[in-house]
């Protein structure tokens, strides 16, 4: 049951995170607000988000759209569409940071093999990942490597592989930072 978000107006809040496939069907979705009380309302929202963004090219940079009083930032990779929705007075860049965190964390967890099939095969990781990013609309963490780290610690049993994971993780983070600083 989602917690009421309305009273928390001064804290940045996320209304939902959607991961849809290239036909607009759900891969994983998470709603944190009562704005869409029924399943049909949720599906209708997903449909309109999908159709409004379908034709855009959000593969290199995150794109943004505003409609019905919501701001949606989104990014596509392969046959996966990532969306993060906030209220219309939310700081767009905060939403974009959450999206980027989610997007990159999924990339790390799926070892850069991000498509619908891999995502579904590792749905448990995706769901845990969502759980680590947002709690009831409040941002828990936005740093992709940290999110992936929290999710992945559970995926590996032995202590050895744990440290191994940390190293590869550190490498990934370093790569990420390098890439970002080069792009700037």
């Amino acid at each position, binding site marked *: *049951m989602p*917690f*009421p978000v309305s*009273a*928390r107006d*001064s*804290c*940045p809040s996320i209304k939902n995170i959607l991961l849809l496939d290239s036909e607009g069907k*759900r891969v*994983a*979705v998470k709603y944190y607000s009562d704005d869409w009380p029924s*399943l049909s309302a*949720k*599906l209708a929202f997903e449909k309109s988000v999908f159709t409004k963004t379908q034709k*855009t*090219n959000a593969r290199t*940079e*995150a*794109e*943004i*759209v*505003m409609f019905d009083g919501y701001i949606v*930032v989104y990014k596509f990779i392969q046959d996966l569409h990532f969306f993060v929705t906030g209220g219309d007075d939310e*700081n*767009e*860049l*905060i*939403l*974009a*940071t959450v999206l980027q965190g989610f997007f990159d964390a999924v990339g790390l967890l799926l070892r850069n093999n991000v498509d*619908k*099939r891999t995502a*579904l*095969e590792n*749905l*448990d990781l995706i*769901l*845990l990942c969502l*759980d680590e990013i947002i*709690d*009831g609309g*409040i*941002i*828990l*963490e*936005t740093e992709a490597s940290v999110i992936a780290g*929290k999710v992945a*610690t*559970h*995926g590996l*049993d032995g202590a050895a592989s744990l440290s191994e994971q940390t190293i590869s993780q550190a490498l990934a983070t370093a790569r990420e930072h390098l890439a970002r600083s080069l792009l700037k």
Partner: protein
Amino acid sequence: MAQPFVKKDDDLDEEEEYSPFYGIEKGAVLQEARVFHDPQLDARRCSQVITKLLYLLNQGETFTKVEATEVFFAVTKLFQSKDTVLRRMVYLMIKDLSPSADEVIIVTSSLMKDMNSKTDMYRANAIRVLCRITDSTLLTQIERYLKQAIVDKNPVVASAALVSGVHLLQTNSEIVKRWSNEVQEAVQSRAALVQFHALALLHQIRQNDRLAVSKLVTSLTKGSVRSPLAQCLLIRYTSQVIRESSTNTQAGERPFFDYLESCLRHKSEMVVFEAARAITELSGVTSRELTPAITVLQLFLSSSKPVLRFAAIRTLNKIILSSMYGFNEQSRFAKKMVASTHPLAVTNCNIDMESLISDQNRSIATLAITTLLKTGNESSVDRLMKQITNFMSDIADEFKIVVVEAIRSLCLKFPLKYRSMMNFLSNILREEGGFDYKKAIVDSIVILIRDIPDAKEIGLFHLCEFIEDCEFTYLSTQILHFLGNEGPKTSDPSKYIRYIYNRVILENATVRASAVSTLAKFGAMVDSLKPRIFVLLRRCLFDSDDEVRDRATLYLNTLGTDASVGGTDEDVKDFLFGPLDVPLVNLETSLRNYEASDIPFDINLVPKEVKSQPLAEKKAPGKKAIGLGAPPSGPTTVVDAYEKLLSSISEFSSFGKLFKSCSPMELTEPETEYAVNVVKHIFDGHVVFQYNCTNTIPEQLLEKVTVFVDASEAEEFSEVLTKPLRSLPYDSPGQTFVAFEKPEGVPAIGKFSNLLKFVVKEVDPATGEADEEGVEDEYQLEDLEIVAADYMLKVGVSNFKNAWENMDPDNERIDEYGLGVKESLAETVSAVIDIVGMQPCEGTEVVPNNSRSHTCLLSGIFIGNVKVLVRVSFGIDGSKQVAMKLAVRSEDPEISEKIHEIVAEGKSSVKGKWRSGRWIGEMITRSKLVEQLREYQIRSQHKWGALAAFSPKPQMATRRGCLCGSYICFGICLAHTILLCSTLLQTLHDFSGSCIPWNSSSNMP
């Protein structure tokens, strides 16, 4: 792995369809969930089943109550397993199942055990799960652990507890408030996100304690806040503190502004943007404060990231919007400041915004267009229109309406550009679109036709073309009615006949009837067309519809050459097309109450007194997109409405033609018992105050409401009559009038104090019945003033240069004024415009940023119908001394002199205080000017500053109040215009539909 995740089907030829969950079924998965009960748990298998269950829930599948309970109990068994992956999935599952209170008990102990486990991951997650499903009794049990967790050295655990605290605050605020010491400690945490969560929680715990919030902000803005998110939060709280403190401290530096400004240099874009946004939303932000924020946003505009571009353009657009309606502003002062500074500041970004018009992202492009339309200058209009044309077909109707409205206001601002905008409007009128969109376009064209005389013929022609192929009956009839009023006055009325008669042939009955009326109007107004119109009207006698035939018969008989029915020709026209002298509302009620009998309905029995005045009361604060600096449309149509109202009161009929009605001025504070505003109606030899009163107390009925006006400070005025309001029930506005006589044609000024007097009767809220007995009472209202600007009608001219040259140069009066030190030229310009109350022409009220001199063109009509044109040049020097050269031309040299007097006395009409006392120095009155000029020549220093130094007794005067008033008034006037145009057209149309048949039956044998 016991079983492959995938149920492989044979027909996997379509690789696309492949999914690990292909063909999954709820029933089967619930069966599989039995593995949870196995004594030897297979952890991997179990987590796969949970994933399947979660997948089903995620796809929108629902479990019945029984199923959910069954799964829940099964899942609780899994706490026996030590497997970490499985445990995480169990947590997720419990959260998604959201168990009921009696089920929660089962897992509580397991979760509490996890909360105190050695694994940090368990602790953090167990806290989050437990807090989500807990109730208040359980919460008191675990409160101790939560408090510890908040200050835990592991940031994940601390964050989990803090975030849970934020959620719990909604339901169990009393308990969470006891944690504030721990939360306070967590705010100092070195972990970035712990600080963010702690700050959010602490603020929410203390949000009702202003002092505490202020202290919190004070301490944190000095210290180091680590994460960008926490920084954003702090910015929000800071602007909240600023907002709440600004009402107390009007003068001096804004507290915490330095902090906001320093955030503009933060390394995280998120923080930079949050700060920039906060600054633009400050109430009463000055251009100096705004400039750094706008510079930052300007940089964002050219970013490669769409999100940044969007955020920046949206904020700039909001600045423009709020400058027009004062959306987010709290004080009236604030509105004024915003209005005067923002558009100019945003203008600097015009070039960057223009490149965004072709942005791939449509949201960005639309925002860019609408912002530009509001800030653009005359030279960029053509280019802008061209770009918009390419872009219109791609956007949704709701955006199109915004664009249309923006174009309308732009056109009113730059009347010379009407041709390209009319063309644009007619082009989009031809394209596909819904009713609201089409209506917005038609309304815009109608308004442009009314306000820009040159645009009339071309506009009417476009409308004619539109009705040839218009699917909306409402719009067709509206346009036909409008054509009937405007068409006959054009140079060649005959060319419209074809379009109108085509409607009679091709359209449905409603439109046909309207077309018949329109034809008749042409026939009545244009004698040369009469015979031919009659031929057409006769054809309509064979129409299949009663209404159409009735109308045709009526017109043929009344307008017929023999004039047998009506008296003279004028009488007939007046009867058919003249304004009705009873209010429509009253007529409607009377007609409803009329019972069919032998006695015919008598229109003379309809009461003429207006009970409520919907036009002036229905303010439309949210009414969209009304152009800045486009006021001319306002007054004329509002005046029409007032004129109607006043002419319905017989006592005022002897006063002659109404010259001007000022916009309503509040005489009470908002939210008082009785809300009263006043409208000043100026006649040649009289002034009428119309007090619009609203009683906001449900338990009271007011009777015999009058306003006692003390005119002792207005010597030239003498009261001639008071028209009391008989009764004023709760929440239904009513009017009382007071009329004064004044010397004919003289712009007499004065101050009036007002006292509302009435008899108050108690009303039983249950029955709504009032007591018999009433008590006399009075209520002090604020003073009102008649100022010189009240005698000036804002009327624009489309070509100022021509108008200026056509005016006799002998009537020109030129003088120079030193105005002292001013904040900026822009403020000075609008102050002067307000003082003379004239209409700025050709967009000259906008002063380009940083310019040292500016010329403003003003036009208006002074009482006595004297056209006045003013050219006023301003100059500002390095020390911010402003000087002004005022050249007035009018049809009467005395009036030219008078304008100078008004300007010279302008200071007295402007009341209030300048916030920082910058408006020191004053307008030099003419008499003093002579003296000063002499001295000036002696010193013979041709510096403006010297002149201003002579200003005798520097006086505090203000533009704040009046500027604010003027912008609000612009807004309201425009909102009214739009409302009025549409409502008037509609009521008139409705009325012509309902009234003509009645007319015809009573007049025909």
